[in-house]
């Protein structure tokens, strides 16, 4: 793909991006405490469905991978695996400080402090932890980004796969681990 065609969207892609923006199905990767903020966001107080958002059961069906907590070597492998099972176009949202810089676990030997070294994060939601208002606000931003064709993390991942893979291997030695408990 040339740079030119990469940035230019065809008409059908613009239409498609409109649909994608207003129908955001999420796969939540709830490793940390951040997940506790999702139920209030879903239910009547904030009602994320009014933006066309909703949780989905599997990464195959989802558009957004929402990572709501700190990442260890073990969980990062799973996050990468899940991300790679998602269908294009797909977006990653880092939720809370943990994904940004390791949060309160930043000095643990096992914590992966920066998610965007391993996966293309389209949007971070800062805070420990972010309130539902922050989440709603963030998704509003994400919707706008998608609509404008700016959320292109998935394409970035495709194009710079080697770099991402190098980082992943550097931290994890092995992404698709064979048998990490018994070997």
């Amino acid at each position, binding site marked *: 793909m040339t740079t030119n065609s990469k940035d230019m969207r065809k008409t059908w892609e613009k239409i498609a991006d409109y649909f994608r923006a207003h129908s955001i199905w999420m796969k939540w990767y709830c490793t940390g405490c951040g997940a506790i903020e999702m139920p209030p966001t879903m239910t009547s107080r904030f009602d994320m469905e009014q933006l066309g958002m909703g949780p989905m059961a599997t*990464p195959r069906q989802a558009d957004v991978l929402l990572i709501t907590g700190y990442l260890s070597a073990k969980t990062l*492998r799973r996050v990468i695996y899940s991300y790679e099972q998602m269908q294009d176009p797909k977006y990653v949202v880092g939720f809370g400080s943990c994904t940004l810089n390791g949060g309160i676990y930043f000095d643990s030997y096992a914590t992966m402090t920066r998610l965007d070294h391993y996966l293309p994060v389209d949007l971070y939601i800062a805070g420990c932890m972010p309130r539902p208002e922050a989440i709603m606000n963030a998704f509003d931003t994400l919707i706008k980004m998608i609509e404008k064709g700016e959320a292109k993390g998935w394409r970035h991942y495709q194009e710079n796969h080697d770099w991402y893979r190098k980082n992943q291997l550097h931290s994890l030695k092995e992404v698709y681990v064979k048998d990490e408990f018994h070997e």
Partner: protein
Amino acid sequence: MTFDILIVLMFLGAVTAYLVSKADLKAGAYATVLFSLGALVLLLLGRGEIGSEFTILFMGFEVTTIGWYFSGVMVLVYAMTAFFNSYWMDKMIYPGSYNFLYLFSLGGTVGLFFAKDLITLFIFWEIVVWSSTFIVPMGKSRRAAVVYYTISTIGSMATLYGIMLLHRISGTLDIQGAFAPLKNDPVLATVIFFIFIMAGLTKIGIFPFHIWLPLAHGSAPHTFSPVLSGGLVKMGAFIAYMSVGILPAYEAFKGSLTVMGIPIQIYALMILGAVSIVLGTLMAIKQDDAKKLIAYSSVANGGYILIGILLMDQLAFAGSMMHLFNHAIASAAAFLAIAVVAHRTGTTKISELGGMIHRMPLTYLTYLIAIISLAGIPPMGGFVSKWLIIQGLADQGLMFMALAAFFGSIGSFLYVFRPLAAVFLGQLAPRHEELASAPLLMKIPMTILMVLILFFGVLPGWILGIIGQIQVAAGIEPVMMSGNSILAVNGVLNTLNVFMVFGFGFLIALVIFMLMQKSRRVGLMDTYTSAEFIYTPELYHYGSAFYAPFERLYARHPSVEDFLMALAYKGHEAGLMVNALFFSHKPGVTVFWITVIVAVVTLGGVGL
């Protein structure tokens, strides 16, 4: 002339096949193909000779439409299955005898349907019984053969009693003449009806005689199971037809108590048919062996056929006659598909297989089309016949039969899907990675059967025409056709339209599918595992206890099989008792008995 040649040819063919097998096993197996195909050709050529009579040795024959139809079904199944024989020659313990018995039993079945008198009928019946009895144990179970033989014989001996009784009453053994005096004697007709139909019930596998089917079909050689299920079971339907059609039961039972217009005698048997449907369905759902599963489905389908035949009306009877054909080819095709799997993998256990579609797509397609027909889903043949049966039941208002029919119908989705999902779909075990697809000679019959199943589902006119003739001959209103529409009193079915609309829907779906972005092909193990890394396909395959929650609901069901086995054991114990009571090594015991007898006779009888 064609038909006596046909019958004699089969028996000569049996001997020929045996002799050829002695020289070359494969050639012997090909001989079975040639002879059974020859029989098919002769049958088709001889269509014009319906109504002729002939004699072989001391046996009289008459060619009737129904006989022609039944033997056509039978020969078709035999001919298609024969293609498989050559692949099992090196696995059989007596390949030559297998070829011999294969054609011998074919000769028996053909002769049976053309019998003019009851003794000829019985002779051929028993020929089929004993020749097939010796094929069954070449497979996986010896006990199966004994159970098969015993159940069959209980039926055929009852029927023999009926034949003798008929002869005593009417003084003739001619099929038409022998039943004549029964019309005016309902009591006698009832007795004969129940006794005579026994052979049919046991052969179809109607509850409580169904226990031999899963045993024999499940463990017979893979090449004989299709014949057993598709072919031989249908002999029972012929006897059932004779009991209602030729007797004629409805006329004889005119004065009896009726349920929904059906004489209670016939209704009682229908209930057995309904029980068979429900039971066959429930048992099929929980089988782990694919062959046993199809065998139990034969029990269920036998129930449909019996109910339809017993109704002797315009719709259900036609449906049942057609179902006979549809079930024969569909069940044969399903068994053949499983035979291919067994040939390649060496097992028929559902839980040990998986992902076969990636190795043998044609076999998968055969099985798919066969089960669509078995489950009665359009546009396959099985749908037309089930539709006719259910419309017939609705016309008569037989609600409990319908209840069973619905249960069997929906239940069949469950059990036919199980091998589809667990044998052909799902994960392919690494040990099966290198499997080859079906050999060419196996593909031929599978393709033919597939085409036939589809063809008669879309254009059932030809076969319904023959069935119409049978109905006219039996003195009932024939099933009505107009163009491609089957006109039932309470509904119309235009199979061609169904097919076309289905094709249209499929086309739209295909267009939608094609218009969208191309998909990326991923491996079978690249599935959503909750992000767990799994590398053992065998364990990552949902194959055993497929319907576990449902199976649990009737896990502790009472079983007539247990009862019959207990009965058999009681017989065994009685034998031991006889032995203990009378056969001592001490002469004193015998002397004692002599004394007892003398005492009894003298005390009781001197005065007489």
